[in-house]
Each structure stands twice: as structure tokens, then as C-alpha cells.
């Protein structure tokens, strides 16, 4: 069986220890790096499936590392941040990170995020050639060629904006997309004034694809950050 490889970049020994113990219980392979320079080296030589990156490293800004890694690789990056300021997360996500965890996080939460990232990393590798005209996620199916979306085999009627929104989320399944990113992709602008409209369209879209919009299964809201399509 293939054991996924995980690169853990963290300078605090206690947290490193906690993550190592957790990964051991799940029988993942892992490698740890203590600083940014080491992390960049390992990212190349170790060829990890997922990188877990602490934003507060002693030698380098975490966002800088993400940019560098994104220069050659699309490996999923989960950032861990002690700062609860949303802007840091948004910056990291805009730089190309996939997901984030805020300290203190629970082990369950950590493992859940890790699984999402690994699945994404796998589909990226396997489904690359089939980056085709069809998208399937649970009961949700999108026919890009026809410009139609289906839920449980039934076509759902979407407005052009809702459809665009759904496509942007689907193409980045598993990844947290920031408000700015979505606005840019769908509307072509990134004005903060457009955020209310984004919320409204997201709510109408949800009503059409979620069975219970108050407990969404497909589109997850990240308060102050953005949205994410979840792989079922």
C-alpha cells in the first residue's frame, strides 16, 4: 500500500512532537524541517504529497516559502498559524496555500484537513489527463461542455453567475478559496464592496445544491476567509 509522504515544517518542538505522534498513529511517512531554508530543500528532495507549514518560522516568512514552492510544484500546502488574524491566512491562501489550521487545533481537525489535502493530491495526479469536460463529486455532476450542472441526476437551473461560481469552486475542490480569488475569477474584479453580492450568490447557489443549506455538505464557509468545495 502506498504510504503518503508528509513534510512537516515547524520550529516548535512540542507541536512537532504532537504532529509526529499523530502521524505515527495513522502510519503516514513524514519528514520534519525546522526552518524555511530546510523546508525548501526538503520540498525538492523529499517530494512530499502534502506540506504542513507553520507561518511563524524563525528565518523566513511563511508566505515567501509558499510562493517559492508554488514556483515549481502544486503540492497541497496546509498552513498552521498561531496568529488569529484573518489577514495572515488570506495572504497565505492567496499565495497558493490550500488550507489552514489555527493554533490551538484539535487532532481530529488536523487529521480531517490532512485527509482532504491527500485526496486532492491524489486526484491531481490521477485525474490530470482526465481534466476533461466532466466533473463528479458525490451527487454533484458538472458537464463543462454543455454548461450544465446536475444534482442526483436532475439538472439544476443556475444563473450564469451561479454557474461560474460553482465551476470555480469545483475546479479547486478541497482548496480554501479566498473572497478575493473568487471575486477575481467570477467577476473579474476584487473590490471589497462586492463581497455582499458574493455572499448572496453563494447563498442562492447553496439553496440549489445543498439538501440542508444550514448544514452544508458541499460548500463550506470559512468566516472572514472564503469558501471551499468539499470532496464527498
Amino acid at each position: 500500500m502506498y504510504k503518503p509522504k508528509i513534510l512537516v515544517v515547524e520550529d516548535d518542538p512540542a507541536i512537532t512532537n504532537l504532529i509526529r505522534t499523530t502521524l505515527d498513529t495513522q502510519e503516514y511517512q513524514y519528514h520534519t524541517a525546522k526552518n524555511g531554508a530546510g523546508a525548501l530543500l526538503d520540498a525538492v528532495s523529499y517530494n512530499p504529497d502534502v506540506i504542513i507549514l507553520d507561518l511563524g518560522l524563525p528565518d523566513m516568512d511563511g508566505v515567501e516559502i509558499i510562493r517559492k514552492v508554488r514556483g515549481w510544484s502544486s503540492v497541497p500546502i496546509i498552513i498552521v498559524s498561531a496568529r488569529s488574524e484573518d489577514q495572515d491566512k488570506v495572504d497565505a491562501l492567496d499565495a497558493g496555500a490550500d488550507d489552514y489550521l489555527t493554533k490551538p487545533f484539535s487532532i481530529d481537525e488536523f487529521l480531517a484537513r490532512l485527509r482532504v489535502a491527500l485526496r486532492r493530491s491524489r486526484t491531481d495526479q490521477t485525474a490530470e489527463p482526465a481534466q476533461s469536460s466532466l466533473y463528479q463529486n458525490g451527487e454533484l455532476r458538472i458537464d463543462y461542455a454543455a454548461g450544465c450542472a446536475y444534482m442526483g441526476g436532475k439538472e439544476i437551473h443556475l444563473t450564469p453567475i451561479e454557474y461560474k461560481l460553482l465551476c470555480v469552486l469545483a475546479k479547486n475542490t478541497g482548496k480554501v478559496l479566498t473572497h478575493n480569488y473568487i471575486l477575481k475569477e467570477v467577476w473579474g474584479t476584487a473590490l471589497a464592496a462586492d463581497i455582499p453580492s458574493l455572499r448572496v450568490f453563494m447563498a442562492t447557489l447553496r439553496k440549489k445544491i445543498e439538501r440542508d443549506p444550514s448544514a452544508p455538505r458541499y460548500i463550506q464557509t470559512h468566516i472572514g476567509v472564503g469558501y471551499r468545495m468539499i470532496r464527498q
Partner: protein
Amino acid sequence: MENYQAQNQYRPGAFQKGHLKIFFGYAAGVGKTYAMLEAAHQAQNRGIDVVVGYIERHTRPDTLALLEGLEQLPEKIVEYKGISLKELDLDAALQRRPNILLVDELAHSNAAGCRHSKRYQDVEELLRAGISVYTTVNVQHLESLNDLVASITHIAVSERIPDSIFDSADQVELVDIEPDDLILRLQSGKVYQKQQASRALNHFFTRDNLAALREIALRRTADQLSKKAQKAENETAAKAGEHILTCLSSAPSNAKVIRTAARMAEAFHSGFTALFVETPETRDLKGENLKRLRDNMRLAEQLGARIATVYGDDPAVQIAEYAKVSGVTKIVLGRTNHSASLFMKSKPLVDRLTSRMEDVDVYIIPDVQPLYKKKRALLRKPEQKFDWKDLGKSLLLTLAATGISFLFYELGLREANIIIVYLLGVLLTAVWTNGYFYGILVSLLSVVSFNFFFTVPRFSLRAFDPNYPVTFLVMFLASFLSCSLATRVKRQAKQSSQRAYYMELLMSSNQKMQQGQSEQEIIRIAAQQLQSLLGRPVLYALLEKDRQLRFHAVPASESEQTMGRLTAEELGVAEWVAKNDKHAGATTSTLSHAQNLYLSVRGNQEVMAVVGIPSKFYPPLDTFEKNLMIAMLDECGLILERRKLRAEKQAAEMETQREQLRANLLRAISHDLRTPLTAISGNAGMLMEKSVSLNENRKQEMYRSIYDDSMWLVNLTENLLSITRIENGTLPLRRDAEMIGDIFHEALSHVDRRAAEHEIRVELEDDMLMANMDARLIVQVIINIVNNAVKYTPEGSDICLSAKKENSMVRIEIADNGPGISDEAKQRLFDMFYTVNTGSAGADSRRGLGLGLSLCKSIVEAHSGSITVHDNQPHGSVFSFTLPLEEVKIQNV
């Protein structure tokens, strides 16, 4: 100027003014300079830093010998019309900053090109800069004694100092010598050269003269002493009793009246006001007369008078009104020798005044110069330019009157009616045109055309009836008179409307300035008001914290041009104004070469701003504009100061509040953090060491305890972070439109684990409901309230989250059906560090810090919402808060 800018260090408040010591003599040669130099030597011997700033060169040799051993400041050489003049180098003195500076001849007038036109102004600046000054002055140089001395010696002295500077001196040392000794000294050539001496002896230094001068000097010294004593005792009480009023005019004799009034004010220790009644005539003053009026006004100001201006046609009425309102007890007037004109009330001003005021003493000062006669308005040529339009109007009116008269004539109406019609024409002309000229013209034309068209024989200028010439004359006089009356009425209306406009301007500027949001805005509003008053661009700059002036200009359209003229030199003048709190620049006697007039805008304590009024390319300001401008700037200064003080006070209050909060927080944290930390470290320690001896159940219990305590700490940390964000004010709220449903979802995923035992429901009236909020903080609010509900209600209770639109707000309610909260507790629930003691919750319940709800309140209020608590039916509590509603208009669907 450069020197001056280099040492531009302004320290308000902490500044000690320098002391002024005056060596006062009754004539030249009494030994003032000698006494001053001796005093300087004594001071130097005591270790005080003494520097000689300026000593007159014609001083006698034995006096000059005393200069030996004293540091001397090099004099400033000023080239003036080919002559090099020596002056005190003010900038050098300011830079040298000795303890005491010696400046001879206080009454000296500086050469053109110096900063101030008078030496006493230099001295004032030195004093303001904290340098003490020794100086000399003779009795005849005192402004108020000038006339008196001149009447004794028959020599007019042009160099004078205002009495205020003499009276405010910290020390006056009278240098006295017997007149006989002085004459002896003079004869031996110690004061003047031999030739000069004999002339002086014959003219000036007669024994009688000297005795008289000596008496005046002695008395003045005594006055200065008693005045100082009284000032120290009670400044206001001294002024309360009497109030002397004098009137300003352009007459040459007015100066004498003002001086007399000033002397009286001094003798009575009374208040002193100089009143200027602006009449249509004074408004038209030109050239020499205007200059004289300004000089007189300046004189009054120097003599300590408050200048007031009133407006009206009749000075008597205005003076009486003003005197009544401001509690004047004595009026000092010159005897007017205006010849009464034909249409004016013929009684002299004094009589009219006394008939209006029974309880005020009126003092008349005889006029010694009867040569001056003011030209009456009627005799002057009309100052208006000839206007074709007005001429046309006049001719048309005459024509119309003639036309109507023809009609009347044809109808057979009597001649009287025709005359009335012509009179009407004259009246209308007076009203519709400017000036007497057209009225008189129409009067004449009316008489002629009446004669031509309507008297027998008609269509000729002859008249048969001997009555006609009388009719013509009466008709002309009547029309002439009515015309002049109409013109007067019109002028008065214009005047009063102008006054109303000015008053309105003053009121509205006050109102507008009050509404200014920032200091910068207030001064900008003031500048705009000035601009509309004076009809020219205005420069303004706040005196900022770093004592810098950054000028702006209104109106924006001329800003570039106006700012372009603001050279480094001009800025230097402005900075001088800011530092010395005196007006300077064009039209003043300080730094008068500047293009602009700079005025300080001051509050009660310090200069708040500086305003620049371009003067070089604009007509001079009239008194009225000047007064109004100063009134407006004073108002502005007070408003600025009030605003500043309020801001400072608020900042101080906020700081103390924050300090208090920090202290309380620290105390509470250090106390309450220990409990969970003890539990965590204790449990973990046990598990490390005694792991083997503990059974699995026990271990599980300890794991759970560690987890619970750390989660409690996590929640506490979140709250503390939010508090620092809210209370610090450094991090602004990150407000965005958020879906209420998302917020509920997020909050519920973070509530206490024990919530599993409770039934939590969400009821949304509209699932698209959005509010404007900082999501993280509002999530914290909901978590805190829900956690409280979980904590203080029994297991299995219902908790319901709901939200609905309420006008422009969203109301969020979190209701439980627990035991409810007592009314007493409700009152204090949102106070910081308030916790409810619930006996029922048992030993495992952890007391909170009492931060949660007070934080909720701060957060909600920072969102301009409000938070309340009320009872649920049938039991339980409802926490309810509001947030601003966000409504979205979707455009590009």
C-alpha cells in the same frame, strides 16, 4: 531672519518672561546711562551674564569708560539712503541669550530695514524670549505725557513709547539730580558740546522747565509704583469703578484728546475705551485724513484703550448708546468746530450728547488748532462715476412725469396735481439712481418742463403770472429736499443691510466653525469666511505639534498662485508671528516689508494658528473689516483651543480607563489562571510518574480534566485577544457583510463540548439575512452567550438562536428556557468581572472571569448596536443584540 529661524525653539508655558528695568530721567544728562552701566557692573560682579546690546555713541566719556569690562554686542549696520546707521542687532542678541541685555534709549525709532519700527518693540521681543533688559528713557518720551511736556518745553518730541510698556516694567529706577546741578553739569560741557549747550540752556534747560519736568517725572514714577501695587492686589476691582470713553476722529486735535483721556483713565484707574463712530462721511475718508485717523487709533491702542467701532449716521446717538451699554461713566471729547450745515441738526455734538445722557460726565478738551475743517459731504463733488444708465433713467422719469402731466392737463386737473406728479418723478429718481446729482438734475428739468409745457404761455419758458417764479422756487426746493431725503434713506438702508450682513457673517462663521470636525477644518472654515469678507485669498496654517506651520490657501482655485508668493522670507514672518503672538507683516510696524499681513489665531493660552492676508496687491483693509476679522479670528482661536483641550481631556480619560482596565484584567487573570493551570500541570505530572499505579478509569478522568481545563484556557485566550482588539482601539474592526446563517453555524461549531447535552436550534426568518460586522468578534459574542446558556441551564434545556430584520438593524436573539436571571443580576450582568454565583451548578463548575458578557457589550457597541437581556416566557432568559443591516442590490446577475 536666517539666524532667527535657526534658533527657532518655541516652548510654550515653560517660558519665563524677562524682567524689564527702566532707568528713568526727567531730562537728558541726569545720568541714566551711567546709572544703568553701574547697575550692569554690579550685576556682573554677582556672576550674572550681562551683555551691552546698544549704547548711544554721543554718550559722555566718563560714561563710556564704564563700558570697560562689559561684553558688547556688535551693532548692526543698516544702510539707509547712503547713510549707514547703527542699530541694536536683535537677532544676535536673541542668539547670544544673556541674562541681562543693556539697551539704551528705549524710545528710539529704528531705521528702515530693521524688524521692528521702534526699539521698544525689539525690547518686547527680547523680554518674550526670556532675556531681561536694562534700558533708559526720558519723561518726555512717554506717550501720555507728550503734550504736557511739550507745553512746558515748547519742543515736540516724535519718538515716543506707549505708557503700557513703562507701566509694565518690573522696576523703574528714577535717576534724579537737582536741576541746579544739572545746569552746572551742562555748562561744564558734560552733556552737550559747548555750542549746543548754550542753546539748550536758553531754550530747554531753564530752571523752571527742569523743575516742572522733574515734578512730572517724580509723579509718574510714583504712579507707576501705585499702579503696580494695585494691579497685584486686584486687577478687576480697580477697573470696576470708572469707565472712560473717548472718541476717535481724523482731526489732528484728536490725539490730544486721546492723551488726556488716557491720563484721566490712569488717574482714576479706570477702564478706557476709544470709540470710533463710522458714519457715511468717515467711510469716504481719504489720504491724509485716513492716515491721521489710523494714527489716532494706533495711539489710543498704545495708550491702553480698547478700540470699539459702531456704525450710524448720528455720532451722538451712537456714542450715547454705546456708553449706556458698556457702563461708561465719563466721556472725554474735543470741542468740535464743524460748521453746521443747512440740512443737519444744528446743535453741536456735545449738546446733543449731554441731552441724551444725564448721568455721565462729559469732559470737553479745547481745540487748539482751529484751522482744520472737515469738508461736508454735500459740498464734496459726487464721488460716483457718471453713469449713462442713471442718466437715462432720470430722463425717462422726467419724460414719464411730463407725459402723465399732459394727461392730467387734458383731463382738466389742477396744476397742483401736475407739480405733485413731477415731485413723484424726482423722488423715484432719487430712489432708483445713485447719488444726488440725478435728483437735482431731474428737479431742475421738472421745473423747466413744467414752465415750458404747462404755464401760460404754454410752450415757452416765459411765465406771465407773477405767482409762477414763487411756484418754481418752491417746487425746486421741495423736489431738491425730497431728493436729498430719499438719498439719505437709501444710504441708511444700505448701511444697515451691510451691518446686518457683517453680523450674519460673524454669527454664521461661529456656527460653521463650531461644526468643524477637526482643527484643520475649523481653521479652513475661518479662512473661507475671511476670504468672503475681505474678497481676497487667505492663507492659513495650524501650529502643529512640532511647532511647524504648513500653509494652505483658500480658495482652491487661486491656491497655487497664493502659495507661490509664500517665500521663505514670508514663512519667516509667519513663524515670528507664531512665536511672539503678535501681528506682523504688511501694514504693521513689524517686519513690514512682507507681502502679507500675518495674524496669530490665539486661544486663552497659546497661539493656535496663523492666518496670512495678502496685502501687497490689494486695497488696504478698512477698520471695520479689520475689527471683524480680528473678532472672527479670536472666535476661531477659542474654538480651536476648546477643541484641543477637549481632545486632550478625552485622551487622558481614555488612558486612565484603559489603565484601570488593564490593571483589573491583570489582577483577575493572575488570580483565575492559576486554578486551571494547577489542574493541568498536576494531572499531567501524576500521569507521567504514577501511570502504572492508576487504573484506566482514573486515567481517563485525568485526561478529560486536562482537556477541559485547556479548552477553558483556549476560550479565555480568544476573549482576551478580542478585548485587546476592542479596548486598544489600535486594530480597527474588520467589518464586512456576513450571512447571519454562516455566523451561527461558525459559532455553534465552537461552543462548549457540554452543549451536546442541550437542544440547540436555529431559527432564521430570512436565510439571506446579512449584517455588517467583524465576523470573528461577533462569533465570539455568540459563543460567549451560548456558552453561558449552556453553563447556567440544566442539561436538556432548549437554546434557540434567531435573527430578524428590525428597521435598519438586524436583531439577534439567543433564548433559553432555564431558570432565568434575577432582576438584580440583570442590572450588573454586562459589568466587567461580574459573575453569577450559582450554588446549584456544583463543584465542577468553573467560575468565569466575568469577562464574557462585558466583552459582548463592548463588541456590540463598537458595531453601533446595543445588547440587552430580558425574561423568556414561561421561564428562562433572552439575550438580544442588534447589528447594522446589510442590504445588497445585485446588479450583474
